[in-house]
């Protein structure tokens, strides 16, 4: 049997609730309903899941999905050995056996035939058939499936199928409002609230430009990076340019506008 403890979240991750999502998640978990977390990149989806796993004191198995991921990467496969074969459980199977929260990050990146294997686990059956092995796993009572995806930037080709979507309860995340985001930056990095407020302002400047040359605004995660750099003694102007502007755009006009916003804010 796999060691359950290694998957537990040991220390409390910092998470600032934006609304009632913590209570709602707890209710979903009580009833073992699958959960989908949507939202733009870097707004705290993964952090939220981590925090809930810690709060519920359940193991958390995270799988980052990618294009080349196949069903056997989730379920498990036979490995060839010199004198025969050996079955190795995939992360989803492990989670179903030990009763962990299985978190499939950026699920739409995975191929559609892959996502279908989660279907039997997400309805009333709560089973996982391992057809190659000829085994039917009944999920552990503590098992729960959580998926995340970013509806914004992926292409039309990479949308979730209706049959997949309709198996989940969903949370819609967005970047927190200015006051809350300031608190988050201050708490997460210990930065002075005034500077944090300025960072948030720059972040919002960039979010206003979404769709006008920017695919995505500056995420909370990048703001935290900038705050961390400033906390470390980097000049705020440099920190902002390095952490907020340069990563998100190669467009000279946008870069100049954001640079100006930085200069105008930190004066």
């Amino acid at each position: 049997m796999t060691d359950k403890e290694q998957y537990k979240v040991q220390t409390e991750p910092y998470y600032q609730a934006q609304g009632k999502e913590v209570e709602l998640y707890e209710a979903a978990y009580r009833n073992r309903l699958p959960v989908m977390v949507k939202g733009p990149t870097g707004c705290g989806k993964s952090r939220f899941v981590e925090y809930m796993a810690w709060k519920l004191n359940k193991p958390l198995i995270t799988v980052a999905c990618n294009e080349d991921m196949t069903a056997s990467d989730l379920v498990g496969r036979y490995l060839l050995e010199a004198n025969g074969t050996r079955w190795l459980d995939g992360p989803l199977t492990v989670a179903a056996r030990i009763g962990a929260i299985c978190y499939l990050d950026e699920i739409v990146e995975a191929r559609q035939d892959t996502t279908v294997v989660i279907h039997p686990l997400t309805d009333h059956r709560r089973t996982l058939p391992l057809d190659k092995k000829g085994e039917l796993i009944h999920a552990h009572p503590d098992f729960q499936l959580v998926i995340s995806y970013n509806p914004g930037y992926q292409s039309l080709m990479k949308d979730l199928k209706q049959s997949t979507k309709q198996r989940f309860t969903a949370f819609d995340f967005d970047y927190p409002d200015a006051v809350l985001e300031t608190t988050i930056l201050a708490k997460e990095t210990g930065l002075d609230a005034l500077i944090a407020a300025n960072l948030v302002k720059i972040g919002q400047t960039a979010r206003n430009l979404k769709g006008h040359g920017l695919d995505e605004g500056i995420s909370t995660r990048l703001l935290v990076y900038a705050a961390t750099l400033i906390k470390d003694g980097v000049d705020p102007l440099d920190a902002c340019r390095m952490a907020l502007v340069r990563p998100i755009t190669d467009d000279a006009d946008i870069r100049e506008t954001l640079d100006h916003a930085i200069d105008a804010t930190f004066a």
Partner: protein
Amino acid sequence: MTETETEYQHPLMQKYWAMLDTRFKLVEDVFEDVMTEALAILTREGIEAYLEAARVIGKLGRGVEPMLVFLEEWPSVAKVVGEPALPQVMGFVMKMQKSPNGKAITPFLQTLAPVARRLHANTQCRNYLSVAEDLMARTTGSIHGHHATFPSPGLPDFFAQAPFLLSQLSLEGLKNWVDYGIRNYNNHPERQKDYFTVQSADSHAVLQRERHGTLFMDVERKLDLYLRGLWQDAQQLVPYSTAFDELRKPVPYYDKLGMRIPDVYDDADTITGLDRYRATLAHMVGHRRWTQALIADNWSPFQRMAVEFFEDCRIEILLCREYPGLKRIFLALHPKPAEDACDPETTSCLRHRMVMISRALLDPEHGYQDANLRDFVARFHSQMALGESGANISSTKDIASLALSYVAKTRRQSDQLAKVHFDNTVVDYRDDNRQMWKFIEESDDEEMFEKEKKRAPEEELKGLPPRHYPEWDYKSLTYRPDWASVYEALHPKGNSADIDRLLEKHSALAKRLKRILDLLKPQDKVRIRYQEEGSELDLDVAIRSLIDFKGGANPDPRINMSHRTDGRNIAVMLLLDLSESLNEKATGSEQTILELSQEAVSLLAWSVEQLGDPFAIAGFHSNTRHDVRYLHIKGYGESWGDEAKGRLAAMHAAYSTRMGAAMRHAAHYLEARKADKKLMLILTDGQPSDIDTNDEQLLIEDTRQAVKELDRQGIFTYCISLDPKADEYVSGIFGRQYTVIDNIQRLPEKLPELFLALTK
């Protein structure tokens, strides 16, 4: 002057007068005055050279005018550019004298002083002379092949405009502007005149392009992003021209239609032109956010001015609360008049006082001592500080009452004086505050009780407005901005049955094509091998793996294969040259080229329809650069049905072939398509040409440039030329992407085959 003629008291003066050796009465009248000035500025040698030059000019036989002008102007010119410039100037004058351009001497000398003030240095002056000389050399002489010499039509006008031009352009820009005029209007004297008097639209456009400073059109996107990003405002920005209003400089303002800002800002000391734009926009955004309009009727103009100044400061302080970095820009742009700059006994100092308090309100380190001013600054800030953290941002009304009491307190009798102190009192990034006032009555006149509402009759839109495209000028390697106007329209409809008949006629050919088409049709399934997971077992690999496995080696687990669909993804645009020459009969045939083209195009359209590629057809012809017609025959969204066939059937040929503009226009449609490959086929029977272009090479080079542009946009151009003599120029334009079809009768068969070969 009452002295006896030509006899001066002072022997030196007498000597000078003798040197001048002239009998012009007018010169004599002013001689003493100009000499006083000259003696104060010029050196001893300078004086002699000056008089000698004046003597020479006097003897040119052009009357008294040039000599007078020279005597008056030269000292002040020499003051700026130095005396050694005289030989060059004289050299140029002599050149003009020897050429037919003698008439230009007076305007040249007339404007030399203001020009010199703009140029500062001697080297600059030399460059100016060489620009003028170039202009003279290239525009003088033969016109329409006559080898008699005519004077340069534009030269005198150029000199007259030179001071204005140099106030707008750097010397480099002036050179480009002159160059453009010479190149484009060299053989059209009237237009050349229009150009060099800065009257024609072209002249304005090129002037605008060459101006110094930060041009609005260069930073428009940055400003849009600035408004949107920092202020969440998406107003339209409308530039106004600052080049042609010398007397009354327009001021920024905003209304329902957008924000009006100057088309160019020069850098101001430490502030870049871009930052000046930003300051102007921020100020207007501030008004839009925080200013409530007041009723103006009961206030005097002075009171209104004061309220405007106070309100401007209020919103600027609020803006700086939002973005503290703006303060640096505002303070750098805001004038800081000295406290004693204005004498209240003789001048109206109201503006001076208002700008001082405006400065003091923004700048804590203003350093002004006036007790009233300090008191009101404090009152203003306590007003603004009310609930600094909260929503309380004071209001236009409260600030207005503060402003009114300031005016009342500091009023002076002299404020009414006609002489107003203006120096250093203009805050040029602020708008004219027209949105701040509401007027209840239009006017005080009694008879004006009701405004007559005029409504412009709504004009019905006929066709689409023209789109302007630049044209490449190979001689200067620049684009002529907005040169060709393209009008687009649907091609008129004809009888679609005609086309069906044509297709019928070529049914044998169609059958043959069909066989090729079937082979070409998207081979949807493509095998992907070496997959760990796949839809089928790939036997070859599987057996190899098994052998490895049995042999004790590590087998390759990627023994499956799967399939992927692979479609054609080509967007095609067929551009037809519909110029007059199409009406000619094809050699050795009863049919015209137009009819053969129709057949060929219908077959091609049918083939492409079979393949399912997105396909559009358009025709073009031109009648000078002002009228390039672009006619839609089939759009991407349409199927190859009766509508499109009808338009093709009605196709008729006229006018000339301005290909570059049509290609650029077609490209903007093709560019909007989402396809991996974009193909533009151009079917033409001759070289690009138009009746307003004498230089054959010009449109050829422009088309070549268009091909290059398209290539950069990812569009593959391919020319099918029906001109047997095309080899001379077509490869110059299209490189290797062309075919010349000599036997035009075979066009219907060739065209679809060519397309298929291209896209295989």
